[in-house]
């Protein structure tokens, strides 16, 4: 018997037009004037538009373009702060791009505080001409951090699974892309399902479950080299591998004895330790930021609810942490450890919700019909999730301050997004 499967281990680039949709902004945005970067038109156009959309996507800014301003400064001494005060602008951003030589581009940018009438940041960064997008993301992150005090996530990456139908055959792709959905690279192509991709804590590797030979196999793949290593295989199903914060363990769901239970896999010696033991389903584990707790979804109370088990405590029992409604699943911890984000069912809608550990109620973040798989950005401020609308699934994002955006799928279905950590 022949088993057909196609695998591509080298990374492959897809060029496509990016469509970005910002559906809602924050209730209290900073007003900023974005003066177009000077330099040769060929590169500045691209940089300017990427910075603009990067900043818009954070939802924290109301951006004034040059056409909306009273005066446009050409250099630093030229800024008439009064003109910006009249429009209620808080910050001014200026910058320039220079081709240092054939292989280097340098960008310098300044942020001015209008109220104080002074410069609060000047930065200079270097990039290479065929990675302008990356350079623009770094500039956006610098601006964002200077104004809000939070680290920016424009230069981080997303990992997700896409599903395309090609000649009546379903093709699954494991894709890594920029945080705005552009610059897609395929890590793995398979005719069998790929599920539960997740980033290692250092964001250099990814773990996922692939059914490419009919068996469930957990792989760890290094992004830079494309090399992968199988760490676990099982004839029954395996799902949702999740890295411990120190990168030494994977928690995962195994169906060994016909029932889903959480296990911890030691990546050094491949030892498996069973964590839960209950006749109900236990699945979708995730680690707390300091590695002391594991949260999972369990049906032990009759409906899916989130439970937490303390690893530091001797003989600890799972503690139920959600009590609202009859469906709370796929939880993950905020990076500050102050709360959790999960999928909550209210009436017949599945929405993303937030619950702080010191509060006894939940805060819904979205209000669409079918939201799945939330993943939190490394700065803890944005949540990316998969939505299904008119039978199409795509990625959508919401910030804690209430801003929303979408990364529409170009083709096929997009599932199970996972947000990387900071990359530098």
């Amino acid at each position, binding site marked *: 018997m022949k088993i057909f499967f196609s695998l591509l281990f080298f990374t492959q680039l897809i060029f496509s037009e990016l469509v970005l949709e910002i559906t809602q902004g924050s209730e209290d945005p900073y007003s900023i004037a974005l003066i177009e970067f000077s330099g040769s038109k060929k590169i500045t156009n691209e940089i300017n538009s990427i910075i603009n959309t990067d900043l818009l996507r954070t939802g924290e800014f109301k951006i004034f373009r040059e056409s909306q301003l009273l005066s446009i400064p050409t250099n630093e001494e030229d800024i008439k702060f009064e003109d910006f005060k009249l429009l209620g602008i808080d910050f001014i951003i200026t910058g320039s791009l220079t081709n240092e030589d054939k292989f280097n581009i340098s960008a310098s940018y300044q942020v001015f505080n209008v109220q*104080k009438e002074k410069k609060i940041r000047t930065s200079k960064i270097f990039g290479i001409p065929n990675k302008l997008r990356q350079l623009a993301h770094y500039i956006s992150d610098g601006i964002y951090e200077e104004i809000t005090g939070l680290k920016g996530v424009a230069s981080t990456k997303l990992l997700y699974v896409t599903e395309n139908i090609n000649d009546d055959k379903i093709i699954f792709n494991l894709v890594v892309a920029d945080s705005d959905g552009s610059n897609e690279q395929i890590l793995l192509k398979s005719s069998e399902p790929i599920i539960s991709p997740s980033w290692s804590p250092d964001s250099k590797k990814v773990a996922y479950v692939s059914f490419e030979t009919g068996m469930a196999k957990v792989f760890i793949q290094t992004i830079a080299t494309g090399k992968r290593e199988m760490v676990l295989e099982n004839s029954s199903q395996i799902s949702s591998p999740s890295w411990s914060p120190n990168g030494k363990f994977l928690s995962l769901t195994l169906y060994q004895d016909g029932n889903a239970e959480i296990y911890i896999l030691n990546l050094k010696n491949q030892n498996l330790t069973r964590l839960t033991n209950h006749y109900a389903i236990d699945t979708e584990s995730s680690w707390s930021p300091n590695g002391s707790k594991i949260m999972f979804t369990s049906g032990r109370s009759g409906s899916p609810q989130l439970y937490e088990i303390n690893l530091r405590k001797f003989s600890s029992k799972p503690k139920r942490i959600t009590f609202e409604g009859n469906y709370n699943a796929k939880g993950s911890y905020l*990076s500050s450890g102050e709360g959790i984000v999960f999928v909550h069912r209210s009436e017949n809608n599945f929405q993303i919700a937030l619950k702080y550990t010191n509060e006894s109620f939940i805060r819904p*973040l979205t209000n669409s019909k079918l939201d799945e798989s939330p993943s939190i950005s490394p700065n803890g401020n944005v949540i990316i999730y998969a939505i299904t609308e008119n039978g199409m699934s795509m990625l959508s994002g919401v910030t*804690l301050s209430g801003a929303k955006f979408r990364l529409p799928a170009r083709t096929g279905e997009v599932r199970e997004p996972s947000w990387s950590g900071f990359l530098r």
Partner: protein
Amino acid sequence: MQIKSDYLIASFISFLIHALIILYLMDFFYSEKKVRPILSNPINVNLLYKEDNKAISKIEIIEEKPSINSINTIENIISFSPKIESTNISKLIREDQLIKSSSEDHQVNQFSNMMIQLIQSAWIKPQNIQDGLVCNLRMVINKNGRIVAVDLIKSSGNIRFDNSAIKAISRVETFSFFNEIPFNLYQKNFKNIVITFNPL
């Protein structure tokens, strides 16, 4: 006899060790540390100039309507008249001072309430932040009521909350009623103010 006491000491120490182990296994020493890590540094707001911090008055901002009966209390205080029967001069002076100080307190209260109202109306509390966050800001205000410097002196641990407080202050920019404040009162109480943002 010597051996016996050694045995006693040894068994006592062994008892202690075992007791500790058993207590440890019963999670006697386990405690959940509550830390609130700050994700990144709060925004630096540079002071334009620094005053000495001797006279710092504290105002608490609470999300509730400030008392409207401040006008009534003025009447109350005016009606408080010293007894004239007494001829003791030193007593009179003391009473005079008392009135003065109480009216001063009253004025401070009144102006603080006005400031609180202004800041409250300028403050947009961020969505989806947890309850129980508190942050302290220090403002330096000049005689004309213009806020010349804002300084975060105690972070709430949540940067979005801190930012919203700073934004509220910078939105107020100037307290227009400051020219009504007597100069010595301003020097004493309103030059340097610590505000606590503590939503209920």
